[in-house]
């Protein structure tokens, strides 16, 4: 049996379809589908290039190293035979010596170790060096991942509150100060700020790491990347953003990640482009910050004074408190605005 998309309403109805695949006509699912696929593709550790560093390195290992490192007695036996999986005549050592013109007697033809030529020995050492380097890189990557993501799904454990009353003042500030170009909001949540910006004619995109939350604005046709803001900025060219609003994520990131995020933001924002931080006031924890969130957050969230310092150190100017016009009263958050120098 096959599942087919449902026919349009005015299409002639066939006999009872076995599996009505109601894909929810009328909603914009294409963007949501693309975002879901892209979110997973970003988790590929070795990209999509089949012949990247590790592949090239493995080729080297195959040509100049053991058949399979650390493999069986049979593979070691194969080392000494006159054929390999390539079907080419001669052992890899013989083929190498032939290619290098080193077959027979003479300098380099036979080294001291097991009849290897000097070139073979050198290449074997290169392979070992790459193998060591590869292992070291992997260790560092794993360590870094642990630092950046001490708990998987932290965005769910420390959920970003919606901007709520801050939507209008933040949107007004962005509209009034942006030099043009895309404006990014992370974590965009249900996308209310995006709605306001789009309505004002701004090209606004969201970043939201919580997939189930991101589906809402995606299905409304908004542009939302299902990822963390650091990943979203990593792929952007310098001076390409007309504005950046950070909320939610700023309460969750480790301090070292906040510092590098602001540095990256400084690079990707256009000259004179605004940045707005909407952060939780550590002295007025909101009801959203339960026990788990508070313990994961410590020593965050950061005070406004600390944000001011971080923004200045990152090279932003005109750091100021954003007037919520009373909108933020009773809200345990504050907002700071700044801009890149003109």
């Amino acid at each position: 049996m096959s599942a087919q998309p449902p026919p349009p309403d005015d299409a002639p109805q066939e006999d009872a379809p076995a599996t009505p695949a109601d894909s929810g006509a009328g909603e914009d699912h294409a963007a949501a589908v693309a975002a879901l696929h892209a979110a997973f593709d970003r988790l590929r550790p070795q990209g999509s290039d089949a012949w990247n560093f590790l592949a090239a390195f493995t080729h080297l290992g195959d040509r100049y190293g053991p058949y399979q490192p650390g493999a069986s007695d049979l593979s070691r036996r194969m080392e000494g035979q006159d054929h390999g999986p390539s079907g080419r005549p001669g052992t890899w050592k013989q083929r190498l010596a032939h290619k290098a013109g080193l077959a027979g007697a003479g300098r380099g033809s036979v080294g001291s170790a097991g009849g290897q030529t000097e070139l073979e020995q050198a290449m074997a050492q290169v392979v070992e060096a790459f193998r060591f380097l590869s292992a070291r890189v992997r260790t560092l990557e794993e360590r870094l991942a642990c630092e950046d993501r001490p708990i998987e799904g932290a965005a769910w454990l420390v959920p970003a509150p919606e901007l709520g009353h801050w939507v209008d003042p933040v949107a007004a500030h962005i509209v009034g100060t942006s030099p043009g170009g895309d404006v990014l909001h992370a974590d965009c949540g249900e996308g209310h700020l995006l709605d306001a910006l789009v309505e004002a004619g701004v090209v606004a995109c969201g970043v939201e790491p919580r997939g189930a939350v991101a589906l809402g604005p995606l299905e409304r046709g908004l542009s939302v990347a299902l990822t963390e803001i650091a990943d979203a900025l990593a792929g952007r060219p310098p001076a390409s953003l007309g504005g950046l609003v950070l909320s939610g994520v700023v309460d969750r990131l480790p301090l070292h990640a906040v510092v590098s995020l602001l540095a990256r933001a400084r690079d990707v924002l256009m000259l004179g482009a605004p940045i707005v931080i909407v952060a939780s006031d550590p002295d007025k924890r909101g009801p959203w910050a339960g026990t788990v969130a508070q313990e994961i957050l410590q020593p965050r969230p950061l005070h406004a004074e600390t944000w001011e310092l971080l923004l200045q150190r990152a090279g932003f100017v005109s750091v100021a408190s954003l007037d919520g016009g009373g909108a933020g009263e009773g809200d345990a958050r504050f907002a700071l605005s700044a801009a890149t120098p003109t």
Partner: protein
Amino acid sequence: MSGIHQFVPVLHGGDAVGRHTLGLRDAIVARGFESRIYVDTVEAGTRTLTSPALAYPAEAHADDVVLYQFATASPMAAWLAARGETLVVNYHNITPPDLLAPWDNHLALGQLRAQAELRLLVQRAVLAVADSHYNEEHLVAAGFKETAVVPPSAALGSEILAAGRRSALPIAAAGGARWLSVGRIAPNKAIEDTIAALLVTRRQRDPSATLLIIGKAATTSYADALHRYVASLGLSNAVTFGGHARDATVAAAYARSDVLVVTSAHEGYCVPVVEAMSVGLPVVAFRQGALPEVLGEAGVLVDSRDPYTLAATIASVVHDAPLRARLAELAARRLAELDLATAADRFVSLLCGVRERRG
């Protein structure tokens, strides 16, 4: 005394190739032939069932028929090609390297090596047997002149499955639909597509739907990514990674589930589909690889990777009692066509034919 011996790089007791190899061994012995299993890497769990490949030359007989279980790269291929015994290849498919490269270049390169090894065997093998017509096409493309198709004897035993057998009527879904995924956790299985569809299902129609994923991680980076994906989508409480499970546990999972979801981008056969059909569990699968051939009309095939389409299809299968009953009926018919109970014996008949011709 000459015999019909099998070679497999490593004999895993719990995987499809391992069960198939052991099933064939029993069928060969039942016909009165001597039959040993030689491995390149000895696994602790099957040590008593195997001999090291390097022991074979001392035990070999000129009239032996050697059956090579081909599923991955191994120096065994070149080693066997260089020997003189009558060689038959049993091909279980090679996962396309480009599906593995983004996750593990070593594995991808191994698949490239396997492709080269398959070509190396073309001149030496007197017969190549695929477990599906889809796989047979690969053999023909590689240059094998004489080919045949016999399904694998790899499904869980009928006694074990019988314990989990149940009615094909829908399970009361008060607690949400229970989706099941069974198989190695490898990039070609594209389990992320199942997870994305679960997200859509929970958002749109069944907030309590859950997914149980049973299988050993074949690629650590891919398994890690699935865990991160599940966490980022907010599905940590809805998706269970069951890991490698004992046969009885797998059979119980079939019995407790509402649907088997297979979103593989590439499948050479897919034994879990056969197991699900055996217990009347409906199957929803992407139309990829050998899945249309194995399922026939007994499951629902989806043409799109769109999780909304997949979610809607699964919902229709889970909640439509007449459809489930119809699928169970078609599954029984399809299993009768596959005639898996005699598959091993049919395979041995092919080997006997080879042996007689060579004799």
